């Protein structure tokens, strides 16, 4: 008896475990039947915007889209080398027949990034302002970053079915933590002497936030945005499993059918997008902190 107790971990009986799991699943199913439509309706505006954006990129004449991209890349990075590199990357993508999928991916990454910024920065600010918010948010962020993404895909799919919105949610959940963390960090790192000076001149909390804390945290926030974009791109393949169109779907097809070349081409296209996003956002981040550069007079 004694020996048995030590060699095998005392676990709940099979019956109890099944009961717990079943109870959990049933109630969640009931919840999703009850509220699934309402929750879906909440996301409708995002869906419309995403579909509109995707159609815009896919249906506009490709030279026009390409020129717009290159213009954004040039004005973002102010680097001719990055612009020319991007031109070649997009031309290759087009020639190898991946233009349409790439546009889908760009549109979902774009929308996810905007959503992450829109939610992430306010949450980061809240965390920086309140110790309690920080204590609550930190473990949630830890879970979001370490929980295997398939696990939270299950309830999202149960709730919203297969499609763009669940994919979008999965990507945002995975990609939003860096921007929240780095906004919080950036604001907390602002020199306390500068804040004291602002107090001494009678600045109110809002003036301090918008005139001092956010501008000074901007380089750190930008590092967060950069990471968020990279993580969103990393999720493209997983998101394609629940019906998000784009470069992820051919990769998925390539895995199941062992098409090495197909997987490689689409994979390389994702890499190319990642490098372009990274270079542009980094040079932009450097440029907005021009006060840090330059020699003393």
């Amino acid at each position: 008896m004694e020996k048995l107790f030590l060699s095998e971990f005392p676990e709940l009986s099979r019956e109890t475990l099944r009961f717990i799991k079943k109870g959990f699943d049933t109630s969640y199913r009931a919840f999703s039947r009850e509220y699934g439509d309402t929750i879906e309706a909440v996301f409708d505006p995002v869906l419309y915007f995403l579909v509109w954006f995707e159609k815009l990129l896919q249906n506009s004449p490709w030279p026009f889209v390409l020129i717009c991209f290159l213009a954004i890349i040039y004005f973002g990075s102010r680097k001719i080398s990055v612009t020319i590199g991007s031109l070649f990357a997009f031309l290759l993508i087009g020639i190898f027949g991946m233009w349409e999928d790439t546009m889908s991916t760009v549109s979902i990454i774009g929308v996810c990034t905007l959503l992450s910024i829109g939610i992430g920065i306010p949450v980061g600010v809240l965390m920086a302002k309140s110790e309690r918010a920080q204590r609550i948010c930190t473990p949630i962020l830890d879970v979001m970053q370490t929980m295997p993404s398939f696990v939270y895909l299950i309830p999202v799919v149960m709730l919203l079915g297969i499609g763009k919105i669940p994919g979008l949610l999965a990507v945002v959940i995975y990609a939003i933590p860096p921007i929240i963390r780095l906004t919080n960090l950036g604001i907390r790192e602002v020199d306390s002497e500068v804040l004291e000076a602002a107090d001494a001149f009678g600045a109110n909390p809002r003036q301090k936030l918008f005139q001092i804390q956010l501008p000074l945290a901007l380089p750190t926030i930008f590092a967060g945005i950069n990471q968020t974009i990279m993580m969103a791109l990393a999720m493209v393949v997983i998101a394609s499993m629940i019906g998000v169109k784009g470069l992820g779907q051919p990769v998925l097809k390539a895995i199941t059918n062992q098409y090495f070349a197909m997987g490689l081409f689409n994979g390389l296209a994702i890499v190319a997008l990642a490098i372009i996003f990274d270079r542009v956002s980094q040079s932009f981040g450097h440029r907005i902190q021009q006060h840090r550069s330059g020699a003393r007079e």
Partner: protein
Amino acid sequence: MSEIKIQIKNLYKIFGKNPKSALVQVKDGINKDELLEKHNHVLGLKDINLDIKEKSIQVVMGLSGSGKSTLIRHINRLIEPTDGSVVVDGEDVLKMNDENLRNFRRTKTAMVFQRFALLPHKTVLENTMFGLHIQNIDEKEANTRARRWIDRVGLSGYEEKYPQHLSGGMQQRVGLARALTNDGEILLMDEAFSALDPLIRKDMQDILLELQDELHKTVVFITHDLDEALKIGDRIAILKDGIMDQEGIPADILLSPKTQYVKDFVEDVNRARVIKAKHIMSELNGQDRDNAMFVDQDDFIDRFIDKVISDKPNCLIVKNKNNDEIGYLSTKRLSEILKR
């Protein structure tokens, strides 16, 4: 005598978890070391009383840890006291609500910091306009006012530079311009020149005195440097371990130090360079004008001592700016003071 601008009464500051209970101990006479050892509280300031006169420069001097920076932060309530009151223009700063306090800081006071505390992401011009932006003063007026003060502190041509591109002395000029642009009646300077090289520090002291001649602000100036205190201060308060040892005009502090601490402090000072004629003159009493020498009331002894030795006058007559005779000084008194 001019009006009292800032009145600090029975001010106590104790740092720690439960300052109120520690306050009772302090009032019962426990000393700083005991308080730290037995109750784990730090005594910041103990029973500080200080009346600061309008339009004068009040220096608060002390070594690091003496509580001088803590004291100046009570005037605009960047630090809350444990007990006591701070009254500015008849209004208790400690009783103001958030909104009133912000208004008080915006319009009445301006502060200059030891390590400048400029906004690194804003240009010299934007930094100088900071106080006005906080008050939502319109851009055009803010711009004009800021440029005037930038010019006044000698930074014309640097308006579009960022602070990091300037030397320490120039950064502090920006700090000074920022404070002056705010146009408060009270200027709080927390070791404003301590981080600067000696030569630059002297420049800045001269700029401050020159500006004060014209602006007549109420200046509270914190320093750890006795020479600076003596040069700038109309009055000097000496703090040690959170307690005020002595307060008075520079000459009094030099000539009659009250405690051993102050005595040690002033021992090595070259009196001839610190004491002005007006500090040591006596009342006019029908002195003989024969072979008398005339000196200005604001002349330091070392301005006229050589002439006293070569001309051997009977006495010195002290005059004010309007050339009125206001006092006299015997050569005997002069030599006593210099002999110490």
